[in-house]
């Protein structure tokens, strides 16, 4: 934690609390936390402070991506040690290149997410806030086994044992896959639920007993309803919902992380240069593109309906590279009808809240940790302006400066 006193002056503040920019604002940071926010041109005491004039640019909370995985690499191709190093490098790049200050993992083999979380939390590396899942849990013949991050469990005790194993190894939450997905073999369908009732109940029971949040991969109404009713903290994907699902989201206050990128980023659907370049580099199999295309409209429909109904939602990408993933997902939210303000909240305040860090992060308010970014354009006019990054500030210190030299 930096001991330096920092003052960011002449900022147009977007605090993720009020839906309007506040011009001519100064933010004072001491010992890594925000101690003063001075609006209307009020001057801070600059004695013993490092003063940074952001020249009217937009100072806002750092971004969050609450559904990520390491790359899908096989141990036969890339040794574990190198995969771990690569994951750390990509997490750090997400922070320093794109201002993504918080990420929530949705499954990683060999607890590499736990290793990096500890390394970042203890200051051994400067990195983002990372929330670890360990493996994602599915059944034998379950979802996305080729990712390398799945753990196949069967029977109630199989799930209980695997969940206890994740807990023992230091995860923050449990990633439970209740259904199939878009990206998998023909038998791995998002319209199918995979777990037996007694398996789901046992899995949620042990998580509830030990007070671990469940991040539930649920892609169809049956799986979504089962997960919400049993106390899931968040529903991931929700490609197909129904009105009862929306009611349950609202009734239980469950988070929805739609991961639009999975169904929307195909050659047929990519619209911007950024999306087209990413799609080209990804080179997804034609059969999977077809499945994504076929699911996209329904996904977009329920996304919009949930948004309008006031379901709590956060940005999670489920794609890589991590430094581009959230930025692409943010663009898709706008494309599917979210306002800039809704999207901004979803990738700042709500991101932190999903991870249980809302007290310390996610908004620019006095007392919070100063993990912030400065962007050149107003994200409340066009949310894609978050790509026009100038500064990344962690604990009050500038760790990336992309401003043109004076």
């Amino acid at each position, binding site marked *: 934690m930096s001991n330096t006193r920092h003052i960011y002056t002449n900022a147009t503040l977007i605090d993720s609390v009020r839906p309007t920019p506040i011009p001519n604002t100064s933010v004072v940071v001491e010992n890594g936390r925000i101690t003063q926010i001075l609006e209307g041109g009020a001057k801070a005491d600059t004695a013993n402070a490092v003063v940074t004039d952001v020249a009217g640019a937009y100072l806002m909370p750092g971004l969050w991506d609450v559904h990520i995985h390491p790359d899908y690499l096989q141990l036969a191709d890339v040794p574990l*040690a190198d995969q771990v190093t690569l994951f750390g490098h990509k997490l750090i790049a997400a922070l320093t290149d794109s201002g993504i200050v918080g990420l929530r993992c949705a499954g990683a083999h060999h607890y590499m997410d736990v290793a990096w979380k500890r390394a970042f939390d203890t200051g051994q590396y400067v990195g983002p806030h990372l929330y670890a899942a360990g493996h994602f849990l599915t059944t034998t013949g379950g979802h996305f086994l080729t990712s390398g991050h799945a753990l196949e469990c069967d029977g109630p005790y199989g799930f209980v044992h695997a969940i206890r194993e994740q807990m023992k190894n230091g995860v923050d939450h449990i990633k439970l896959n209740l259904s199939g997905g878009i990206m998998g073999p023909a038998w791995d369908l998002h319209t199918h639920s995979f777990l037996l009732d007694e398996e789901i109940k046992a899995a949620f029971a042990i998580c509830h007993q030990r007070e671990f949040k469940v991040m539930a991969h649920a892609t169809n109404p049956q799986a979504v309803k089962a997960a919400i009713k049993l106390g899931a903290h968040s529903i991931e994907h929700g490609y197909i919902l129904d009105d009862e699902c929306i009611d349950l989201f609202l009734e239980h206050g469950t988070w929805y992380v739609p991961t639009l990128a999975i169904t929307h980023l195909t050659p047929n659907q990519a619209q911007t240069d950024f999306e087209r370049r990413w799609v080209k580099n990804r080179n997804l199999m034609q059969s999977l593109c077809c499945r994504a295309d076929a699911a996209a409209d329904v996904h977009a429909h329920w996304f919009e309906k949930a948004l309008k109904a006031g379901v709590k939602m956060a940005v999670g990408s489920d794609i890589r590279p991590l430094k581009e993933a959230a930025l692409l997902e943010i663009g898709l939210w706008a494309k599917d009808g979210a306002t800039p303000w809704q999207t901004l909240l979803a990738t700042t305040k709500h991101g932190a809240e999903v991870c249980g860090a809302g007290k310390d992060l996610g908004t620019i308010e006095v007392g919070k940790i100063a993990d912030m970014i400065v962007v050149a354009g107003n994200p409340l006019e066009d949310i894609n302006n978050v790509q026009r990054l100038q500064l990344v500030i962690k604990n009050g210190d500038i760790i990336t400066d992309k401003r043109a030299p004076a």
Partner: protein
Amino acid sequence: MVATSPHRRNSFARGLSLFLALALCAAAQAQTWPQKPVRMVVAYPPSGTTDVAGRLLAERMSRTLGQQVVVDNRAGAGGMIGALSVVHADPDGYTLLLAASPEVSIAPVTVKAMQYDPAKDLIPITLVGQVPFFLVANPAFPPNTVAELIAYSKANPGKINYSSFGNNTSNHLGGELFKLKSGVDATHVPYKGSGPSIIDVMAGQIQYTFDAPPAVLNQVRAGKLKAIAIASTKRLPGADTVPTMAEAGMPGFTAGTWFGLLAPAKTPRAVIERINTVAVAELNSPELRKSYEDRGILPGGGSPEDFARFIHSEIAKWQQLATTVGIKPE
């Protein structure tokens, strides 16, 4: 003939039974080990050389054993936090320490209030690998050989600085040992870690340092550093144009760091032997040897007794050095 009372005979019989039962139990435990995932504590953060050495070994052991060997990074306090967590773990073979030299052989000499005694609280299993230090210098520094460095030092007393990762670290002690054996007169400049130390050698503020292959080889290849010698008994594959210290005129001079597997004290001997067998077989496999050598790590191996002797000799070496040059425990 000494008569024994029935009572004493019964006691003896009971004791013998207990001994045999314990021995059988340990043997059975070793035969069935492991029945659940094994935790391999690495006392350093992910992606460093110790972590890489540990994960490469853990990955192969997991495949062989059919149980995951999970690397658990417990970094801090120069490796002592991770080591202490293993000291306090159950001695059942399910918690191992992939140690590096600082927390096992350097700390006993340089740390005043250690919370564990490596010799009593940990059992050696096998030496996993060694990472020799290169003696590297700024390219503009005139000497190109150890002999030239010694001569330059004599001609320019008080004008040479050498750097380390920090006070009482492995390359600080290696640097002091070098000064002692070579007679080079150089001022020690401690840094916080390898990165800043290397940067200042490249910038020319520091004339030379000792550091591990992963930290220096790319810079040597890029011409930003020059390698004068390697402080090991053999040239390093992949950098075999660099002479050993012996070839450079300093026979017997080695410096570097090493990694080894240890277990909590009281781990049954049979379990230690089983882990040793598995680990050594992996260390002898061509695949792991190549993976290590590609990363500048010389693969280890050997028995628990070999490793115990090695640790003992390392501690003695540093103890002697500390006494000779006046390094005080902190």
